[in-house]
């Protein structure tokens, strides 16, 4: 995006430099600026127009940027993705939304076989600057299929980049960065964090958005997390600090490509790691993270990397979700197992 383009007009505030915003508000601001700065940007999906999205992330955008640029589609996710691919071929930069994680499944064929491959198949002549927004993960006592974590699936797909913000600042910066990329990005928004507020500074530099970030420095053990699990891990670290255990929380942010250097640096220092995610354990992204750590830190690691994850069961109904999602106790148990590990 050339810096000389029309200045952004933020929706939420008249003072754009640093403001208190919810994640939802920060994403809305980012989309507003993207639409203002990039005439080829489009927002499409179910209920994203007049309604402004079921989570209001696209609220006000159709009124401001026009019903042609922010538009409702019929209720068909494969259609939304397939149409976005065609729009990208026509020179647009579509930002489609699927309404909930679980409704990305009907679009998997278009995502895997088309979105992730068109650049390759066309030998780089048909790039796919598409940012797919997916309200993701659980924790809101929602109906079935509204609490899924698809990062392991997406991260395995060649040709996709995958990112998940953990707070309003991350949401703002990462969404703006994703929308500028010439490659497809799956943008996984932690829906349980939509209404959490935080300070958002609307300047960006590439360093702000690439790779992982240390959400809390520490020296005894590295907790690796993304999305909604980051703030939970910070909570856990604070609890552990009371017992004199100094935990580093690494907010992975990019789930593909994974920032192997950051993992190696952190665990190289702490020599112990626990990875936390909501998705089922088997073949989850935690295995990849653990492997990356072990490949780089095998010689110095004090214990195997522990995984604290969802179980290998369908995401349960609200009453059981606190049992399913890694809770503070389960994360603490995992930490304990690592700290107490004795080489057999």
């Amino acid at each position, binding site marked *: 995006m050339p810096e000389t383009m029309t200045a952004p007009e933020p929706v939420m505030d008249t003072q754009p430099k640093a403001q208190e915003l919810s994640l939802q508000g920060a994403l809305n601001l980012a989309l507003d600026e993207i639409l203002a700065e990039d005439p080829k940007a489009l927002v499409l999906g*179910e*209920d994203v*127009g*007049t*309604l*402004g999205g*079921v989570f209001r992330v696209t609220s006000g955008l159709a009124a401001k940027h026009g019903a042609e640029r922010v538009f*409702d589609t*019929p*209720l*068909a996710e*494969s*259609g939304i993705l397939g149409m976005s691919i065609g729009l990208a071929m026509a020179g647009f930069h579509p930002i489609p939304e699927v309404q909930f994680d*679980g*409704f990305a499944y*009907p679009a998997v064929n278009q995502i895997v076989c088309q979105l992730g491959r068109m650049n390759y198949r066309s030998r780089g002549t048909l790039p796919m600057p598409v940012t797919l927004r997916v309200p993701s993960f659980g924790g809101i*006592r*929602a*109906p*079935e*299929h*509204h609490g899924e974590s698809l990062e392991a699936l997406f991260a395995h797909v060649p040709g996709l980049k995958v990112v998940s913000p953990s707070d309003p600042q991350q949401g703002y910066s990462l969404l703006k960065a994703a929308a500028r990329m010439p490659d497809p990005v799956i943008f996984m928004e932690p829906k349980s964090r939509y209404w959490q507020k935080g300070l958002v500074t609307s300047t960006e530099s590439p360093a702000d958005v690439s790779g992982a970030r240390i959400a809390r420095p520490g020296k005894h053990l590295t907790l690796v997390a993304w999305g909604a699990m980051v703030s939970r891990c910070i909570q856990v670290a604070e609890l552990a600090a009371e017992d004199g255990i100094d935990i580093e929380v690494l907010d992975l942010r990019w789930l593909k490509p994974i920032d192997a250097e950051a993992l190696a640096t952190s665990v190289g220092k702490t020599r112990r790691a626990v990875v936390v995610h909501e998705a089922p*354990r*088997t073949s989850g992204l935690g295995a990849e993270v653990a492997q990356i750590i072990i490949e780089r830190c095998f010689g110095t690691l004090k214990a195997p990397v522990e995984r604290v994850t969802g*179980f*290998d*069961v*369908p995401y*349960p*109904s*609200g*009453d*059981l979700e606190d*049992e*399913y999602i890694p809770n503070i*106790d*389960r994360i603490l*148990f995992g930490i304990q197992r690592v700290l107490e590990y004795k080489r057999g």
Partner: protein
Amino acid sequence: MVDPVAPSDLVELYRLMTAVRQLDLAAISWQRQGLVPAYAPELGQEAAQVGSALAVDVCRDFVFPTYRELGVARACGVDMVEYMSTHKAIWHGGLWNPAETHVAPIQAVVAGSVLHAVGWAHGQTLDAHGEVPEAGYNVAITYLGDGASSQGDVHEAMNFAAIFKAPVVFFVQNNGWAISVPTEKQVAGGSVAARGAGYGIPAIQVDGNEAAAVLEATRRAVAHARAGHGPAIVEAMTYRRGPHATSDDPGRYRTLDEERADGGTDPLVRLRERILAEAAADAAALDAADASGKAEAEAVREGIMALGSRPGAEMFDLVFQEPTDELLRQKANWQEETDHA
């Protein structure tokens, strides 16, 4: 072949519709009171739901609802506490037994079970080895909305059903909206029923707020399928008088005036007037039905209040018929950590 709608049918429709209305209204208030975290009202769709459900025989047929079919479930005899357990966030799909009741679990994926109905229906013809049994085929009825009709699966289902001549009824509740998107931005051509012709499937569009008309149309469709003539489509034109769900704010996409104009006369009022006009029952009987509906809602409320969470162990136990070692390991670990914490 099809039973005409009798006066007694009208009264039965009313009895069920008023019960459904009371339950539905009650569920909204339960949500406001925090008893259930969320609910998707069916306000205004009682005629479409009860009218269609009365046309099937759950002793032999099989019903595939979406997430909004309280009225269908009630009319098919599903226990309402077990039904509402879904909205109390106790178990996705509900606590009732679908195999026994012949009502499939709640389906939260739009159009998710449309193909299942086709498969189940084809199973009936396989069981009959191609010969239509004397009593006809058992029939599947699958519910879908105007929004759901946009899903690719609906096309695949209609095409499969027609190719296999499966005894299945596609019952479309065209209630004007898919959350905030009106039918005219959703259903190209304006009618889901109109798509039937392209597959050679007979289709009927019916006033979905006229209970007797829905009952009759669905009886015809079921009879068609039962007789071995293959699938049929019924599109009931109705109106979602309430919000999409308790979290929705329809004011963002339609005005109250529009609601009033588009909603028309309440289907329950219409049925009541017809019953009184035709003297199928008197006002006292209908009032009694209303009262009994209210009492039922209150009883369901008590049932829901009493309903506890399911044990966490069920997360592991119900994944498979034959659990895996890894799941048992995870369960043991979960149990141990839960006990410790």
